[in-house]
């Protein structure tokens, strides 16, 4: 029995660990450190119709136990991703989750229709929550109706299941989650980054040339855990959790909150082998917790079956 195997719409994962979108490029760099086939899946960098340079630099700034980024969806564009990046990844036995972005609904539809036909793309991740682009991005993700609308349109054309990536920068995350579920989303991924800023004392200007940026890393984990705890009790589609994961214990915390798989973002920059390291540590941790299969932990903090032995 593989105690770490998880099955989600479109995804048979040998383990529930995957790099988060934008924190792993299209995998090439990390392939220098380990065999990408050990991963549960890979969430590749956001793809837009046209290639994008993104925002001016500086694009990253450090914060206490976190970082801000304002990359601005830099990517080589749909054609190149489809004809070069994704085929390169076919050498690995690992399902790809394609993160797609745009500035209007039609952009999402165009990218979704094409990219979902790539043989190794097993699911889409609708990025309606990127805080780093002027148009679209986060705007779609903060209003239930628009979030539902883009979900519905993408569902119509996608050949693979569609996961919607939620923004934490909202008053009521549950209502957004329910709206995209009703619109046909097969799963949720949460959370994208929190909107933040740092100001440089010397220049007296924001450190990021874009002004604001997205906060990620360990600092945001409690916010993400809280949101997954809230949402997982109100929807019937699975959640891929992310935000500040740096160790196997964090993965378990996400499962207990209600996630069915976990993505690792910022921590890849700190430690390039973090994903395989976590995968290796998980079985020992399950032993310690006397858990047979990791899926038994999903929603464990609010499901009542289990009673702590003291």
């Amino acid at each position, binding site marked *: 029995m593989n105690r770490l195997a998880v099955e989600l719409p479109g995804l048979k994962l040998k383990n529930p660990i995957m790099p988060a979108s934008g924190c792993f490029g299209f995998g090439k760099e990390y392939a220098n450190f380990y065999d990408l086939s050990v991963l549960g899946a890979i969430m590749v960098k956001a793809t837009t119709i046209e290639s994008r340079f*993104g925002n001016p630099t500086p694009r990253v700034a*450090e914060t206490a136990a976190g970082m801000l980024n304002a990359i601005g969806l830099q990517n080589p564009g749909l054609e190149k991703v489809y004809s070069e990046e994704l085929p390169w990844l076919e050498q690995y036995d690992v399902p790809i989750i394609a993160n797609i972005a745009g500035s209007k609904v039609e952009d999402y539809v165009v990218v979704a229709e094409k990219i979902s036909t790539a043989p190794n793309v097993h699911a889409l991740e609708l990025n309606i929550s990127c805080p780093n682009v002027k148009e679209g991005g986060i705007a779609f993700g903060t209003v239930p109706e628009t979030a539902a609308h883009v979900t519905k349109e993408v569902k119509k054309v996608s050949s693979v299941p569609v996961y919607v990536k939620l923004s934490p920068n909202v008053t009521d995350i549950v209502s957004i989650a329910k709206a995209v579920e009703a619109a046909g989303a097969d799963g949720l991924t949460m959370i994208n980054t929190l909107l933040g800023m740092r100001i440089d004392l010397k220049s007296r200007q924001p450190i990021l040339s874009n002004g604001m940026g997205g906060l990620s*890393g360990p600092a945001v984990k409690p916010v993400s855990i809280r949101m997954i705890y809230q949402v997982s009790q109100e929807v019937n589609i699975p959640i891929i959790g992310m935000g500040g994961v740096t160790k196997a214990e964090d993965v378990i915390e996400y499962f207990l909150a209600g996630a069915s798989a976990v993505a690792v973002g910022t921590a890849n920059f700190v430690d390039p082998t973090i994903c395989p390291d976590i995968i290796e540590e998980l079985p020992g941790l399950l032993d310690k917790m006397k858990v047979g299969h990791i899926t038994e932990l999903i929603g464990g903090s609010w499901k009542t079956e289990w009673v702590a032995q003291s």
Partner: protein
Amino acid sequence: MRKLDGVVTKHEQIAEKIFELTIQNENIDASFKPGQFLHLKVGAGMDPLLRRPISICDIDEKTNELKMIYRVEGRGTEVLSKTVYGEKLNVLAPLGNGFPLDEAEQGQTALLVGGGIGVPPLYYVSKELKKRGVNVVHVNGFQTGNSVFYEREFSELGPTFIATVDGTTGTKGFVTDVIEQENLDFDMVFTCGPIPMLKAIEQRYHGKKKVFLSLEQRMGCGIGACFACVCHVQEDPAGASYVKVCSDGPVFPSGEVVL
């Protein structure tokens, strides 16, 4: 490119806010090239979170030691400066492309121009060029006399000129002032330092000499995955073309990157 733990074998302050730090690991050898850098984890916890890029200042193949020189700037280097003998430092190394030493032929003269914390990588460059029979001339610029370091070490390899902004040591002014005043003659330039300095050098010598510039940029991953460190290229200055300082650089020929 690997992740490795370096054991601190030496750590001392050599000028105001400037520290020299030596680490040892069996994988440190001549495959670490001048101009390449390390991405260094500072402290054990999640604060500071990101790694810090620091250039390779020297390699001792025999002892598997690597030397770096850094300035205490902010929190990360402040914490780093507290590291003691015997502690382990986790680094990703060697990263980036390094200076193209093969562009210099035996008997030619290479001008090495460093500014502030851009000086350290040029020491290793100079040593390697010297080994290959290339003549080396150094011009190093600093803010003030207290922050000057490695004057003797560079002098042992070739003529060495110092410029300080306030004139407390060497020539008062910028490195470019020295080059002109001393009427230096050379076949190529290897340089590393602040952007205004790199710009000045590129403006003066691009097209006339071979010029190679080592850039700095805020980094996330250090290995090419996060797109934090991209620069526009001069061929397509407002377009989607780019280079990454961490993996395509940090060294670029003049004329390639929009500074």
